């Protein structure tokens, strides 16, 4: 299962509906709050849990193999560039906090707009190079590998 939504925390903002890759977070028309309409299509991917601004969404492991009484909670912060997890075991013996970076740059700033790059030459168009190549393949002056440069050929038949 998957995800479920706490009644008192959800305000029906729809962030989870917007992000769910499986299209299973929907707004209940009477209660005006989100809920998981199809638990057996939930991957426990936590996309909705991370997106919820009120931490209203949680996960209860799949009923067919996961006993009750555990918790895996998460806080994802794009500004800080971190994700914080807390894992609590059913028997209470393990309670772990884990922190990981999600980006090394201020969010979205380091990605080039290719429309603003100078246009490729006709030689490049007819050749095998991609944007930023060959430089970015080896980060030196070396060229792109070819069959010729690597002393190879493609031969039909049974070779191992």
């Amino acid at each position: 299962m998957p995800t479920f939504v706490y009644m008192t925390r959800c305000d029906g903002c729809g962030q989870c509906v917007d992000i769910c890759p499986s299209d299973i977070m929907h707004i209940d028309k009477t209660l005006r709050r989100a809920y998981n309409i199809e638990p057996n299509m939930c991957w426990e991917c936590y996309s909705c849990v991370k997106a919820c601004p009120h931490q209203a969404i949680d996960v209860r492991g799949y009923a067919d193999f996961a006993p009750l009484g555990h918790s895996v909670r998460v806080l994802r912060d794009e500004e800080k560039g971190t994700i914080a997890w807390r894992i609590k075991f059913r028997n209470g013996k393990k309670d772990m906090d884990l922190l990981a970076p999600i980006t090394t740059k201020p969010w979205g700033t380091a990605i080039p707009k290719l429309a603003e790059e100078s246009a490729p030459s006709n030689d490049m168009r007819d050749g095998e190079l991609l944007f930023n190549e060959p430089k970015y393949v080896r980060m030196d002056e070396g060229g792109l590998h070819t069959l010729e440069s690597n002393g190879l050929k493609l031969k039909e038949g049974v070779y191992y």
Partner: protein
Amino acid sequence: MGYKTIIEDDIDVLIAGAGLGGTGAAFEARYWGKDKKIVIAEKANIDRSGAVAQGLYAINCYMGTRWGENNPEDHVRYARMDLMGMVREDLAFDMARHVDSAVHQFEEWGLPLMKDPKSGKYMREGRWQIMIHGESYKPIVAEAAKKSADKVFNRICVTHLLMDDAKENRIAGAVGFNVRTGNYHVFKSKTVICGAGGASNIFKPRSVGEGAGRVWYAPWSSGSAYGLMIEAGAKMTQMENRIVLARFKDGYGPVGAYFLHLKTYTQNGLGEEYESKWFPKLTEMVGKEYLDTEGQHLSHKPIPTCLRNHAFISEVNAGRGPIHMVTMEAFQDPHLEEIGWHNFLGMTVGQAVLWAATDVDPKYENPELTTSEPYVMGSHATGCGAWCSGPEDVSPDDYYWGYNRMTTVDGLFGAGDAVGGTPHAFSSGSFTEGRLAAKAACKYIDDGKAEGIRVSEQQIADLKKKIYKPLETYKVYSNEIVGGSVNPNFINPRQGLDRLQKLMDEYCGGFGVNYMTNEKLLQIGLKKMKTLEEDMEKIAASDIHELLRAWELNHRVRTSESVFQHTLFRKETRWPGYYYRGDAMKLDDQNWHVLTVSHRDRKTGEYTMEKAPLYHLVGDE
């Protein structure tokens, strides 16, 4: 039905499905097509869609040529060996020679790649894998795609590709519907890059009930790559080459970092090493060329994934299960313990949930492993997908028809799971394939190959009718019964999916029959597929969400039929541990050292199968 028709016209490059392949395509297309109109149609939200929606803790395809670690041909040889010889080596070489440039850009964009503090190189997990903090891998590459694309249409389920009415076998765009508004979307485009996904959930999963979503590959990977392209008449290759994964039981948590970085290992229920004792017999099945236990030991070549599965399955069948991952040694090191948990949180949170729920602390208990149900895809340790042209400077004539990554349909390109014969591309390789396809698509347009495309009103209207038919069927017949889901006139998408999974499992070699099939079983399976296909005409959807499921099922059925045809065609057991042809239990290089290629006639639905020659990279001398 009151759904609007929304037409997006004059598109140059349409990207159908924006996972790692599609985002790579959208990003790169802008460089080669400054003034071109680039449009993305994505079933979910591009920020969290595709197989990498949840994140990744490793990039499994990185050469490291800048540090002299590997050359592209080394990776090709590795993929060849892992896939028992069956690889499109031109495509694999091409991907491998470009892939590092994608990874270096990811680092620049802010993806946290771990580094070895001493050498400053990326932290290696294995020979090809590097470790990352990849929770935001998908949002980061999505950002790159969004910066390049003119428009991103989220929540569009692409159901069909549009064909040119002026010229035979040429692509003209795609159609689908918005899963929120229900509106009909028509994308008229000079080229289409299919970045849609492989197929989970076509074989009956081990999990039942609520847990059916805990499949190894994402449940939203609905085989649309194959469904869309087969329907358009594109030739497919290696569709028999489904993959079975040895993973942590129930949660399907990844084992790569555990094996390679944490140096954990497997043992049987008695605490014994079991793999090697199956190898002599296995060598008899596949030949010394593919498994030479002594030689392999000397050369440090890894054992092919399928053969390791075979040892696993055989040991369990011999009554010495379960197979355990020995974690208790590695997890005594607090640093390694932390990596073990991070590894799950970064890409398979469900496994962490499961261990928390069952109080499995790998420090004090060795967790169980299992072999999964089979999956059909083209970017992990398997290479299902479309038969595509390779690059001009590498490919032999048999593999080359003008544009890199173009299928046998003019103007239709593939990336990631969509391209056949290119295993071990993983996330970075799929992104790279998208870039290669985008460059080629721009060239195709610049060469004037997309002139004079005509899409008739008739084609657009016919497809619209087809798409909404399940809603119509529901409306007409649902009131004939008092209530409930049992109706003599239709089945709902879940019922159809259950039927598909059961017959794939029983006749096409699922886990329920220990991955075993034969010609008789496949023939019966195909017969059942035919009636399922007839019933697909009577599938009903009570709302737009169910309509989405209906079309996902359509793509899964189209994929499955192809898997049946290919499995029937290849009369040998090429990949013991992935599946077995009980009537041909040996690997047969005399007759089957070839790639299988299928074509489904668009009008009649008839399949024709052929063998395509295999070319291998060899030294010049």
